[in-house]
């Protein structure tokens, strides 16, 4: 008797073990083929330029950037996509895209120029774009700062300058005016603390702490790395003076909570009506204005009594830093030329002007003409921003930006050194010795890798 075929049996809908194994093997082979080929199955081929950026501190900035990208895309018949993530997520996203060698064409980089060194082998040279952009905008502010290993691996995009934000009503109450030096702010902080309104400067593991404490270190003549980019210079008399000053600031003019602050804490402290002053960009003021926050117990809006003044001067210098937000093109992008073209478009003077306008001046480009943008005269709050920009340097100053200098920031060596001394856990000598050892190891480690 002939064996019935599978099709003729009542169980023909069932899958036999052999069929199942065959199908599974086929599926696995297909998947393996895709993985081995290293590319996705062919789908509709359309040009699409993708741009990954961080959620701007002033939301209208993102809207203007999106408008420009859409406009450029429409003109060039290119599909465009702007993806926005929180700035704290950017590190993870960059690492994943580089690992996969796939992702966005254009990417925000930072905070800090160090990404140019960290991702040197994965970024497209932008020498040609940098050369096109500069003359139209009055030149770059400090061109040599942005060249990493002699190349433009990224374009410096925008910075939020760090003035002092101060409550004018409280300043009047304690009989102070026109503060300009760090010693002035210590005195004001002491008086403020006495009436329940301390100074608010983060000494924790946060970006604002890096910025402000480096500002103080420089203002006393200190630094952490020399011009050669290899000599660790943190062990100096000037560093010890800065440490002692911050200890006084911490114990006499601030609340202990500042060692646990994040970047949002000082904004909250000012807008909640507690802090007399903070060292911060204008974002606190902008959000106070937008949310119509009032002075506690009063009907008056707190934004009306906030003013911004120049970043403080120390015994030796007036200098500060900030987040250097940059933009670059991954060399695994399939649209390098399109990406460069969009950068040229975005950096046209009129587009830069609109973008700065949208950001209310928070996003100051590293281009000379943009420091004269009318927005900085439109509100007295913004008057010091161009002044602060003039004394803003990369965090590794006077040394060059390197992967090691970026690592010093990312590991918060500077805030930790100040915190150890300010809280009494270490003497100034011990704190300096600790920081010096950490930095030497970081720089030596990076040398070994290269």
């Amino acid at each position, binding site marked *: 008797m002939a064996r019935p075929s599978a099709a003729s049996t009542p169980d023909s809908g069932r899958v036999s073990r052999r069929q199942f194994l065959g199908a599974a093997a086929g599926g696995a082979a297909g*998947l393996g083929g*895709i*993985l081995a*080929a*290293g*590319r*996705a*199955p062919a*789908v509709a081929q359309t040009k699409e330029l*993708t741009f*990954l950026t*961080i*959620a*701007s*501190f002033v*939301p209208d900035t993102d809207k203007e950037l999106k408008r420009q990208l859409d406009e450029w895309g429409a003109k060039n018949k290119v599909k465009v*996509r702007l*993806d*926005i*993530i*929180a*700035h*704290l*997520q950017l590190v*993870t*996203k960059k*690492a*994943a*895209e580089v*690992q*996969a*060698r*796939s*992702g*966005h064409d254009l990417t925000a980089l930072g905070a800090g120029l160090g990404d140019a060194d960290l991702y040197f082998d994965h970024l497209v040279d932008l020498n040609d774009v940098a050369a096109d952009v500069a003359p139209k905008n009055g030149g770059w502010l400090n061109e040599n700062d942005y060249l990493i290993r002699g190349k433009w691996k990224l374009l410096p995009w925008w910075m939020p300058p760090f003035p002092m934000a101060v409550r004018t009503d409280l300043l009047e109450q304690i009989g102070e005016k026109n503060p300009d030096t760090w010693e002035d702010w210590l005195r004001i902080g002491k008086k403020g603390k006495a009436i329940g309104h301390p100074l608010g400067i983060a000494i924790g593991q946060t970006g*604002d702490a890096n910025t402000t404490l480096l500002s103080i270190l420089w203002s006393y003549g200190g630094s952490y790395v020399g011009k050669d980019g290899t000599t660790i210079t943190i062990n100096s008399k000037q560093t010890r003076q800065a440490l002692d000053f911050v200890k006084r600031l911490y114990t006499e003019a601030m609340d202990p909570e500042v060692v646990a602050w994040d*970047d*949002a804490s*000082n*904004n*909250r402290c000012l*807008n*909640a*009506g*507690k802090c007399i002053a903070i060292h*911060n*960009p204008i*974002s*606190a003021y902008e*959000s106070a204005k937008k*949310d*119509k*926050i*009032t002075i*506690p*117990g009063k009907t008056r809006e707190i934004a009306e009594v906030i003013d911004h003044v120049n970043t403080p001067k120390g015994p030796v210098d007036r200098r500060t830093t900030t987040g250097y937000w940059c933009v670059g093109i991954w060399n695994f992008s399939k649209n390098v030329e399109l990406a460069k073209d969009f950068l040229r478009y975005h950096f046209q003077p009129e587009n830069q002007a609109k973008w700065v306008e949208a950001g209310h001046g928070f996003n100051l480009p590293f281009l000379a003409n943009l420091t004269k943008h009318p927005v900085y005269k439109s509100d007295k709050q913004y008057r010091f921003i161009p002044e602060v920009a003039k004394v803003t340097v990369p965090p590794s100053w006077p040394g060059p930006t390197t992967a090691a200098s970026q690592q010093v920031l990312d590991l918060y060596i500077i805030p930790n050194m100040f915190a150890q001394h300010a809280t009494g856990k270490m003497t100034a000598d011990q704190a300096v010795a600790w920081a010096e050892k950490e930095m030497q190891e970081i720089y030596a480690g990076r040398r070994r890798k290269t």
Partner: protein
Amino acid sequence: MSSVPRWLRRSRPVFTLYMPTVPFVLFALFPLYFMFVTSFKTNAELYDVSSVPFWIGRGVTFGHYELLSKETFFWSWFVNSLMVSVAASAISVVLGVLAAYPLARLKFPGAESFGVAIFITYLVPPSLLFLPLSTVVNRLGLSDSLWALVVTYPTFLVPFCTWLLMGYFRTVPKEIEECAMLDGCNRLQTLIRILLPVAVPGVICAALFAFTLSWNEFLYALVFVSPAELKTLTVGVFSELIRGDIYYWGGLMAGACIGSFPIVIAYVFFLDYYVSGLTAGAVK
């Protein structure tokens, strides 16, 4: 006969059961309550250090919910999270059942070490796995699609479901399966017709856990999906409502409140299964 008055006997649970439980209930519900209250406060009140944080003192606002609905893709994120979580959970439970059954029932060389290997896989943290997985996702052409998550979530869900179900399957008497086999069932039929109906609490428990883990997942959703409208709830809310040094606390809390509903509802419906599924393995 007991001399304890009836009213005292009746009220005994109040003292022995409910009152001792109250602190734990308050402790567990406080975050939800705080989220709920904060999501209805005005920004001015949120910034006011003199206001009492535990209730609303200056009037209710729906502004934060409006912000979520009108100025973000919140409801798209919600649906994305739901779709990804349901799909990843379903896939993981099916695979978990198929993996757990032989490991719990069959004897073959290396069965035990294979079970341990699955457990160890579960212990590898996603923060290490996301880098190699990003290469895999890219090569599969799944970047920037929800499929990237449906494919990657089972990498941590399957080991978990397998481990949990192995424990549960071992509590089911072998004899009922043997009876079924004597009656002519093969292994697969025994699994589907005999074991699974008995193991429903364990399967639901695994599904609930898988759903919760998927719903709360952050890192893979951040790394593998970029377009705003395709983000999941966890990433979308974080991306849009934390802008540098400005946190939109009201919006964040509103998002967290709505985001917690599916989990709460799922647990309310399946609580009994969940408890029995979790405890069954413990009293074998």
